[in-house]
């Protein structure tokens, strides 16, 4: 269920919220230790991070990614808006596809990285590590675009590892095996829509499942029922950290300092310095940082 409510005037007194999966996570959280990921309680380690890591590599591990910042971007100018925002060509991300992207300041320094989901024609979801709504609103000036941060309206889990596909098939998601890397598919689940994307942060076979928070617990239960035969395990953020470093995936605040939060000018990084030059497309006439990056090149 939806666990973050802003309708009450006192909402600001709640400093951290339970995830829509909280009841299930709590039951599995042997170490009874909680961390904080932005607005939500998050589990660093359920039982043993080493075992959780191996579940991710040899079977499948389930990670709550609800706290990840999500934005729904729609409107006639959604594509030109995103193309000015990020360094890559967004037109190449077709409907039903996901693309990795970075975005920069005018000075060509990386603000954050994330994924762009092309949900439907002209409708995009931008997932980012950091909160980006202010920068996105600044970027929206002059564009016919609607930007909604819907972090709290979408519950998400990552199910990562070699048995993830088998688990989802057993769960009844027929045809899930046909989703190619960075592909998206929509399924019916108990009367609601379940979106599955073949994405992840481990470099292994894996999927991310996106659903309305009201269905979060039910979905979690179905995933774990289906995965029982495939050695499914909940996975904490410590294990994910190992997995993503092995896969050489970078993270804001760790491998680079987000430019907007960096105090010393020399501590920011350009996409080229981060090995992300392949994401910079100078064939686009304009994107934030283009002039600076051309000069750097």
């Amino acid at each position, binding site marked *: 269920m939806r666990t973050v409510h802003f309708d009450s005037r006192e909402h600001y007194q709640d400093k951290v919220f339970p995830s829509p999966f909280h009841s299930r996570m709590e039951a599995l959280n042997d170490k009874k230790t909680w961390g904080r990921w932005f607005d939500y309680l998050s589990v660093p380690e359920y039982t043993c991070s080493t075992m959780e890591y191996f579940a991710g590599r040899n079977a499948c591990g389930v990670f709550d990614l609800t706290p990840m910042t999500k934005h729904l971007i729609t409107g006639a*100018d959604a594509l*030109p808006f995103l193309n*000015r*925002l990020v360094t890559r060509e967004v037109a190449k991300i077709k409907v039903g596809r996901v693309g990795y992207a970075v975005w920069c*300041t*005018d*000075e060509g320094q990386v603000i954050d990285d994330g994924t762009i989901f092309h949900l439907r024609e002209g409708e995009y979801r931008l997932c980012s590590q950091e909160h980006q709504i202010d*920068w996105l609103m*600044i*970027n929206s*000036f*002059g*564009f016919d675009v609607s930007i909604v941060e819907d972090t709290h309206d979408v519950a998400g889990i990552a199910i990562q590892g070699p048995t993830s596909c088998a688990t989802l098939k057993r769960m009844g998601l027929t045809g899930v095996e046909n989703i190619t890397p960075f592909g998206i598919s929509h399924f019916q689940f108990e009367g609601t829509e379940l979106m599955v994307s073949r994405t992840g942060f481990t470099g292994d076979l894996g999927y991310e499942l996106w659903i309305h928070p009201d269905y979060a617990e039910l979905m979690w239960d179905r995933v774990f029922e289906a995965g029982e035969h495939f050695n499914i395990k909940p996975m904490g953020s410590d294990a994910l950290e190992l997995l993503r470093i092995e896969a050489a995936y970078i993270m804001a605040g760790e491998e680079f300092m987000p430019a907007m939060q960096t105090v010393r000018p020399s501590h920011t990084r350009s996409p080229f310095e981060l090995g992300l030059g392949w994401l910079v497309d100078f064939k686009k*006439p*304009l*994107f*934030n*940082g*283009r*002039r600076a990056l051309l000069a750097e090149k």
Partner: protein
Amino acid sequence: MTDTTIKSTLVIGAGHNALVCAAYLAKAGQQVAVFEASDQVGGAAITREFTPGFKVSAAAHLLYLLDDGIRKELELDAHGLEMAKTDMDTISLDPDGNHVRISGAQVHGVSSKDQAAMQEYHRMMHRFAGVIGDLHNRIPPRMGTTDSGDLLALAKIGLNIRKMGKKDMREFLRITGINVFDVLQEKFDSELLKGALSLDGTLGTFLGTRSNNSVFCALHRLSHGANYSIPRGGMGAVSDAMAAAARANGAEIHTSRPVRKILMDFDRVIGIELESGEKIEADVVVSGADPKTTLFKLLGPQNLEAGFAHRVKNIRTRGCVAKLHLALKSLPEFAGLDASLTGERLVIAPSLQYVEHAFNHAKYGEHSAEPVMEITIATVNDDSLAAPGQHVLSANVQWAPHDLKTGWSAAKEAFKETVIDTLAVYAPNIRSQILHSEILTPQDIESEFGMTGGHWHHAELSLDQAVMMRPVPGAAQYAAPVTGLWMCGAGCHPGGGVMGSAGRNAARAIIKGSKA
């Protein structure tokens, strides 16, 4: 054989800065064509007939900042510029007729203590203004570079301040960022004197006497010696001379040809499209329009990087000066003022409190109940504007915020009456002399002259929007961050007032850029 350094240049608008820029570019051998929306050149430095038989300087009505170098280099005098009056006194009108007359460092009608203080104040302010004025003819250096030219220019600014000596430098650093109220309160007793001097820092700005930055605005106003003058034929004569100079150097000037948009090809500007639909290509496009009009209306924020567009969006452009024009059947009589002095610069600012109270309204979206006025009756000195015996009164009136809370359509006529009532306190018979009256609100000024917010300076003059931060960092060297597009209007360093320096600096930057 083609000379690659000769560029074809399109200039958007024929305001005075655009004309100066066009003239310098043409002089340097570039092919220049100017496109102006109005049917006459000059932008906000024009003379127009506001009722049959009466002509007035419709926006700017005094000349005091025009750069001498530009006047000489463009031979404006040879192109028809002639002064009807120079070295005008400022008269601070008193409701009881005990007016104070300021004539340079001399002041009449105040105590000997104030007279002595005025000598020192005048010396100090003009010295400080000289330091500011020295910056006006330079392309602002960029911050944070290792370019030797930039570093040298920054060092020169520091050196100029240091060269003032310990006492003046300390005073310069102390007062430049603060407000005229505090500074004048320290120096003088006479309220009429303080009120009039406070206008140096507050006319044309969204600042009251107690607003910081008002001393900086005063220094801007005094930067060319504050020799208040009236050109023969009104301010339009200045623009006409500039246009003649531009044409003499080979520039084409097209009036009644409004520009619809700036055209781009991939990542660079390639020309303009006129409202008529005609497209014209060029190597370089220079805009004399204000930064928001140039970058948002003509180019489009979608064609700019987001951080830059955001900075431009945040430029403060809240115009707050209304303009009153009166056609009078005879010379108005100001109580206690000798008729021979009615041709001077008359101000209604009887005390610092009066000025501050007038400003207070603007903060809350209202116009002043008792406005501040700067009045000129140019016909006293120039017989070309109206029939003999008849007169034209022109007044800057503030504060009249662009975004009036109640909207201007309903309030405009009532405000005009308020302004005339205020005038009648000092010139009791004025109502019976009026043949025709007109008031331009900042919204009228915006639509007539195409200036965002109806702001004189295209962008508020203040330290955070000055020199290398004018209009915004990233465009302070006259080049927009889009290849091929330049700006030369008052929104650029050094700002507004009929000065021409922004136009000349921009031309220099463009010429330098085309050689690079």
